[in-house]
Each structure stands twice: as C-alpha cells, then as structure tokens.
C-alpha cells in the first residue's frame, strides 16, 4: 500500500513527461524563425529546462518520501516493542525520544548514500541552470529594454575593479621594495 502510493505518483509523472516529450516538448525544440528568432529560441529553452528540473525534483522527492516511510515503519516497530501500558506524559517524552532517534538514524543512512549525493548533485545542477536562465530572460526582456544595468554588466565592473585593485597592490609592493633598496631616492620613487 505504502509503496504503491509512491509508485502511482511516479507513474503519473512519468506519463506526463513522456506525453510532454512527444508533443509540446518537440514543438519548443523546433528552430525559431523570423525577426524574433534569437529571443524566441532562448525563451523556448526554458520549457525544456523546467521539464528536466521537474524530473530530477520528482526523483529526489520520491526517494525522500520512501525514507520518511521507512523511518515511520521503524518508529512503529520500536514503539510497539518498547512502549507498553498506560499512556501518560512521560510516555510522550519516551515516544519523542524514539521518534527523533529513529528519524535521525534513518535519514543519516540515506544521506550517506552515494545515491542521495548523485540525486542532489543532479537537482542542484538543473536548479542552477534554470535560475540562470530566468535571470538571463529577465535581463534580456526587461532590464536591457529599460536601459537598466544587468547582473552581467555589474559582474564585468566587479572583475575590472578586482584586476585594478590587484594591480595597485602589486605596484604598491614594488614601490615599497624599491624605496627600501634605495632609501635616499625614496621621494623620487614615490
């Protein structure tokens, strides 16, 4: 029962993904034409990125849910074995202890697995790509037409500033070294 619930969620999602890939997914991959060709093609890329992100999110989600189910199963087993008799507040504390210990341990096992690391790595990659795409779209479609500075431009300025600061520091160091070598010419060097 528990397992079949997740399997159906996954099945529905897979069905949606397959349908998307066979229909709309193909349309958005078509080469664009006309004067807005470049912009349209970039915008359409967002649909594919979103589909990929959703797919990895679903994989991670299903895995997380399975771990929750396993943790719940273990808690049920432990409480059945360790907690008997009348229910009172001290028993609630005991239940809390079992709950936190079991959940903590079960999740640690999962988080340690290479499986989780690779899922998280994939999800983060798609998420970053999707966010980057959104920012680019915002820059292209709103900031640039309104003549407002974009993140890309600010980064360019920051890079220039970094290089200049580094250069100044280096020159400063050389001047100090030269003035130390020849203190009588210090004023000339400076």
């Amino acid at each position, binding site marked *: 029962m528990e397992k079949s619930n997740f399997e159906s969620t996954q099945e529905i999602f897979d069905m949606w993904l397959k349908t998307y890939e066979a229909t709309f997914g193909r349309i958005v991959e078509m080469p664009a034409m006309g004067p807005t060709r470049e912009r349209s093609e970039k915008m359409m890329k967002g649909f594919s990125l979103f589909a990929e992100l959703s797919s990895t999110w679903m994989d991670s989600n299903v895995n997380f849910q399975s771990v929750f189910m396993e943790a719940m199963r273990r808690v049920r087993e432990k409480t059945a074995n360790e907690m008997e008799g009348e229910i*009172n*507040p*001290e028993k609630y504390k005991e239940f*809390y202890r079992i709950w*936190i210990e079991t*959940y*903590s341990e079960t*999740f*640690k096992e999962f*988080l*340690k697995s*290479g499986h989780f*690391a*690779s899922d*998280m*790595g*994939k999800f*983060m*990659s798609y998420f*970053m*790509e999707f*966010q*980057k795409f959104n*920012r680019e779209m915002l820059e292209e479609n709103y900031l640039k037409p309104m003549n407002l500075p974009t*993140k890309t431009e*600010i*980064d360019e300025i*920051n*890079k220039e*500033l*970094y*290089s200049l*600061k*580094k250069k100044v*520091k280096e020159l400063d160091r050389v001047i100090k070294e030269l003035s130390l070598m020849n203190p009588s010419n210090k004023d000339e060097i400076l």
Partner: protein
Amino acid sequence: MKEANLIDFEKFKRGMELFLEPPDFSVGTTPSEIIFTEDKMKLIHYIPAVEKPYAVPVLVVYALVNRYYILDLQPDKSVIKKLLDEGFDVYIIDWGYPSGTDRYLTIDDYVNGYINNAVDKIKQRSGLDTITLFGVCQGGTFSVMYAALHPEKIKNLVTLVSPVNFDTDKGLLHIWARSLDVDKIVDYYGIVPGDFLNAGFLLTDPFRLMIDKYVGLFEKIECETDDGQCELRNEETVKNFLRMEKWIFDSPDQAGETFRQFFKDCYQKNLLIKNKMVIGKTTVDLKKISMPLLNVMAEFDHLVPNEASKPLNDAVSSSDKEMLVFPTGHIGIFVGSRSQKDVCPRISEWLKPRSILNGEGEKRPIQTGKKRSERKRNSRTSRVNKK
C-alpha cells in the same frame, strides 16, 4: 500524570516568557583593537592579559565559513581568553562579509595576500622574523598552504580541526561534494550565499539540528519561580543558547572563485595532500613545512573527520610534530566543557616552550608604541560586525 503535564507546560511557558523579554547577550567580548585593515579583512589584536607575554606572537586564522568569534563566544568559553591568560600575545583575522566586489578573490589572494600581509604586520610590530600560525577549520587548511609557501615566516604551526586530505567517506560534506557541479553554483551566484552553505550543514543531521535542539532548550528551563538563583540559571541558559544560535546563522557569503577552487582542488581532486595544488603560480609542497607542528582534532567531528586531518603529520617534513585527539565534536572543541579544561591547556603547554626567543629563555614585552593603559582605553569590547 497531571503533575508531569503541568511541569512540561510550565517549562514551555517560562521559556516563552524569557523569549518575550530576551536577555541582553554579547559575543566576542575580550578587549581588542584593530591594528590593520585591507579591503574587508581586519587584523585584530587582543589586549594581552599579562605584563610580559611570550615573545612569539600567535596569529589565529579562522575559516571563511561562519565567524571568528566562536573562539571568543563568551568569557567562560573563550579559546582566545584562555590563550591570553596563559600569557600569549594573540591576533586574529576577521574576514568580514564578502560582497559583489569580492567575487573574483582567489585562494591566492587570501593566502599570499591577506594572510601574508597580516603576518608581515605582526612581524613588524613584534620585531621578530617568525610568528606562530594557529589555523582553525578551513583557516587551518589556508594556514597549512601558507606555511608551505612561506616557511621562513612561521615559527610554529598549530592546526585545529583542519582538513588537508579530502578523500574520505567519513564526513557527509566530503561525500556530497563529489557530486556537486560547483561551476554551475558559482556561475549563477557569483558570491555564494552563506544560507546556501548553512542549508548543507543543517542537512547533515536535520532532525537534531532543526527540531531536537529547540526542544532541548525548553527541557533545560527550570520552574522554581520563587528561587532567584533559578531565574539566573534560566537566563544564562537562554543567553548561551542565543549566543550559539547567533553564531550558527551568522554566515558570511563566500567569494565565488575561492569557493570554486577550494571545492574543486580540495574536495573533488584532493590536490593539497598530493602536493599538486597550485596557488598563484606556485605548487604547494607540504614537505616545505619543517617548523614544529601541532595537529589538533575532535574525535567525533562530523564536519572534518579525523581521516581528513591526520595525514598532515606524515606529509610535512617537521621533526618536531605532535597530534592530539580530544573526545569532543567540531564545535565542542571550541565551546564544549573539554575546551577550557583539556584542549586549551594542552595547546598552551605545547606552545609555551616554543614561544620563547631562541637562546634567551625569557619573556619579552611586546612593542606597540602605545602604553598598555592607553591601549585598554581605546579597545572595543565587542568586535562583532553586523552585516
């Protein structure tokens, strides 16, 4: 049964009352002065606690992740204060909070730039050619790199819970780092948000760190409302909790290029321990480390497992080297009960004979150009900057 219920409710109520009128608390209260700044980096000098401190000054280098004041969280849990009381002349680097202009800073800028300039400044003030470098966590890794690149400036090297070997499965961060596409993260963020890293740290033990920790706080609250001592204890419990909570979530963002190189060269390729890591234009050769080395670890460290720190002792060429492992955790080593009782005294014990000028066997006053009383007047009691 009803009574037990009431006690729990009373504890919760008392705790909430304390939070509604939160007690004032401060961190980083050991008197200090800023003696040098460069960009966002500040070099802090702590006012010595003895008239004639040990001659060789100690420069503490903390990680870029989180803030340096964990080493001076409160007077009774302060590694810094303990070192001062033991007679050392202590400096620390405050890295500040990187912003957009810092995104292109590299490890070369941190190690050969900021750390090197701080070391030169301390050398100039003390009139000595060498100082003690005391690196903590990632700051320890940077200190190891520095000591290998500039061994002529370092008299002693102390590393505290510092990773140098990243090829281990013992820590979750080491496992996760292998699968992370760091280029995509840095290319998108530029400056990697501190909250992003915090999310990773919380994920190492989500239920304990996001639920149990807070339940534990209310469990500690006492309910004898007529007892003044009990009120004071409750207030102290809340203050201690808030100090730690502030530190945990006071997470500076990370300079993107440094983050990229640290992740790729250290966590993913493990170049440092293989003597293949390049900083600036120089390859870091750990065999160049020949000065006395003390490598300190926490047995139950879940962020920097012992396997990540231990190989340092075999990688260096120092003949005078020691390794200490304490039964505590990554944070416990700074603020846990063993920190003041065992960790700091053992480090001081090791440092003392190595902090005396060669052949002199005596302590020497520091040269600052200011009278001690003047320095005290000018010093600030808290050096914690707000974002």
